[in-house]
């Protein structure tokens, strides 16, 4: 596991911030249009700095970041573009579940995606073959490989190479947000798949499958927070520049109240993030159990994504009619935040799971 120093962590965040500011934010409109050339260009930059396999060890071409550092990095990337940040999260989550021998075959720069699914209803696996269909699998379109995560009491992951016989992918044209993580509708009929290792830890730098759902939720929370930060920055800048009634609109209570509410939501993030699961590799902070860990991730995801939806919606409101126009880039943040609220599951389902886990924890022995 990583032993990143505070200085290294600071440097890493600064590097991600720079990348977001210089490379991603200016290309956000192209990414939002779903331009594959722009996505490829941005992904190349991600690969150059090693963030595509950040959790993996050097042996596997990674930089072996801790989960906490990965989340911080993803948050910074999301300030530039939430969709790219989601690609980074899903690629890391997918690769981290692969066994050593399969990882060795993954070419440098490949973009994989982890696809969470409901076992039984969406996908079924039997005798090493996977069947079913899924709508809106984020980052799956154009990915080099997919890892299906069948979430549930005993999560399992199964890897499939792109272009595997029986696997049909179609671009989800209705995708509303995080469009740089191009979603696909999947039809799978007897697709051969390889099991990704279960247990607590696949390999050095790997993530136990049981902990991947928590990683996805915490990562989605980090992306939502990055998107909300960007919305606040843009709204603040506009509110100083735009005049109505002879004064800058920030002078109007109706506007400053919204900006203040955004700032308050952002200020709560360190507290929320402090509860994020920081080691979903099977080892938990003292006193924590797998179940408690999962609950924290759910709570963090709900809090951060609800806050992001509220803040980005307010940000568009601050911009008024201008904010409703695509060219300003602020409405995109609202769409991105909404998708964070819906991934990997809608927040009402996350609430439900949180309480189910709470009840099970109290009734059963799992938490002891």
């Amino acid at each position, binding site marked *: 596991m990583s032993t990143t120093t505070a200085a290294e962590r600071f440097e890493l965040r600064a590097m991600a911030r720079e990348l977001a500011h210089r490379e991603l934010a200016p290309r956000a409109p192209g990414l939002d249009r779903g331009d594959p050339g722009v996505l490829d260009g941005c992904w190349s930059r991600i690969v150059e700095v090693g963030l595509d396999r950040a959790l993996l060890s050097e042996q596997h071409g990674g930089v072996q970041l801790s989960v906490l550092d990965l989340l911080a990095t993803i948050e910074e990337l999301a300030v530039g573009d939430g969709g790219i940040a989601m690609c980074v999260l899903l690629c890391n989550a997918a690769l981290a579940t692969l066994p050593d021998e399969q990882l060795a075959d993954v070419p440098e720069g490949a973009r994989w995606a982890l696809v969470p699914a*409901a076992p039984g*209803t*969406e996908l079924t696996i039997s005798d090493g073959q996977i069947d079913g269909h*899924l*709508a*809106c699998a*984020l980052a799956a379109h154009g990915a080099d490989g997919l890892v299906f995560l069948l979430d549930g009491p005993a999560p399992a992951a199964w890897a499939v190479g792109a272009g595997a016989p029986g696997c049909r992918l179609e671009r989800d*044209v*209705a995708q*509303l947000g995080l469009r740089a993580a191009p*979603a696909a509708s999947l039809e799978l009929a007897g697709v051969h798949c390889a099991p990704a290792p279960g247990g607590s830890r696949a390999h050095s730098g790997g993530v136990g499958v049981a902990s991947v759902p928590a990683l996805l939720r915490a990562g989605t929370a980090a992306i939502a927070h990055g998107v909300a930060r960007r919305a606040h920055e843009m709204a603040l800048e506009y509110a100083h520049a735009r*005049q*109505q*009634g*002879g*004064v800058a*609109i920030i*002078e*109007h*209570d*109706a*506007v400053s109240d919204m900006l203040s509410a955004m700032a308050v939501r952002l200020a709560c993030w360190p507290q929320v993030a402090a509860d994020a699961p920081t080691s979903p590799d099977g080892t938990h902070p003292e006193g924590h159990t797998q179940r408690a860990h999962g609950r924290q991730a759910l709570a963090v995801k709900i809090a951060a994504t609800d806050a992001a*939806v509220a803040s980005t*919606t307010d940000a*568009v*409101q*601050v911009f*008024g*009619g*201008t*904010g*409703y*126009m*695509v*060219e300003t880039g602020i*409405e995109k943040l*609202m*769409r991105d935040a*909404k*998708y964070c*609220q*819906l*991934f990997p*599951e*809608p*927040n*009402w*389902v996350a*609430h*439900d799971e949180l309480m189910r886990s709470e009840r099970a924890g109290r009734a059963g022995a799992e938490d002891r």
Partner: protein
Amino acid sequence: MTSIAAERSLHEQFPRLVPGGGSVDVRELERLRARARRFAEVHVRPRALEIDRRTGEDPSWFDWELVRAGAEQGMLSFLIPKPAGGAGGLATQAAVVMEELCAACPGIALIFGAHALGISPLLLGGPSQWDGVLAELVASERSDKPLLMACAITEPDAGTDVEDPELLARARITSHARRVPGGFRLSGTKRFISNGSVARWITLLMATDPRRPAETWTCFLLDARSEGFAVSRVEHKMGQRACPAAELTFDEVFVPDERVVGREGDGAAATMIVLACSRPPVGAIATGIARGAYERVLGWLEEDRAARGLLGRQHVQLALASMEEEIHLARQLYMDAATELDHTALGGVLSHPSVRALGHVPASIRGRASVRRLLSSDRARDATVALLHRTTSERAVTRSLALSSMAKARGGDVAMRVTGAALELVGLRAGPVRAELEKLWRDAKLTQIYEGTNQLNRLEVYRGLCHRETIGCLPPLHPIHLDTDRRAPTNGDVRAHLDAADTPTHTHTSANGDGGRS
């Protein structure tokens, strides 16, 4: 799957609406609603996603076929006075139509809504407008080349400012209508104008003296074929894409005197009345969006295999109940605002015996040059304003504006909440219904912004209801002389005119500075 609105008649829901009642006859309203619903089901909903996709790729793309289909159902003339050949509706009719169309597609509905908005300043122009453009619109509706209207108020540097007389006084107005012999020359830019790129006629507001916009704000009727007029761009919007939002540029465009709507300088008051008329329909647009989302999610829950079992969950039941509750309240608000406006604020003008009597004069006689000159004379314009003062009061219009603002603001919030909650219920994995809900969610956001942001509207509620102010929202009884050679009129002059007016109103309290508007 429909909400309670579909199961109960309008009279059951809104007892104020009665058969044969004044400006709103509930039997005619039911027929209009049925026509709008049929049009929405047959023509609007089946095309909504495809049009959204096409206009997402090319914002200037426009579906004239759909306009023709709407014209066949009278969707372009329900607001036009009966003497001009229309259905003679007002805010209530516009609102009822908008809810029905928006439950299917708010973008397509906005084409007809923006057309109605373009017409509404002409209604204030009185009988002088009946036999010109309004009659032409009715005739075009019956042809295969229907004409559309638009209303242009917003400028690049002034959005909210131009929707409030107090802010207008300090607004950064860059457009200018310069007086020349026989009319005006218009210069400048108008922005975010719905239907702006497809309208044949545009009602627009400009200052005849940009240094004194509030006092010289004037309404003009512009022929979109005029020399010097251009559509400089069509915006790429987040939602409601079927209706193009255009930037319009005016390069010394000539508008003759007879196309000044109302009197020079009456534009600020006219804007307030137009907003009082247009905000209940915006509340209805928002209610329709929320209803559309609710009906879709309910249909999905009842019929889609992927949703099996979900209806048994209390969370889902509570969410649906809350949606129904909010939609019901939003509808009550917009109908209350619309009927208030039609019954007490403006309905009296259009049903006044003198106006009705003019309506009985055959169009062939009204169309004679001498009669038209008389109807568009300064004296006739003064008489129209005097009639407004006799049939309503500034307090009544202020209260109506506040109720309209309440309906608009609450409706917009309901639309956002319901579409967001519906999208959350179905999640990312649902099939075609997800695309429809995502579109409605994008569409909903605009209802919190246009016709004044929700914040501005809530400040109108404060002024009109909480603080019981009376806003100067009727044109002054006697015209203010605005000749550039004369001393610029001051606010004091305007108030003096208002105070001197022999009307039922009469206290003009200027808005105080508590709380800005945005």
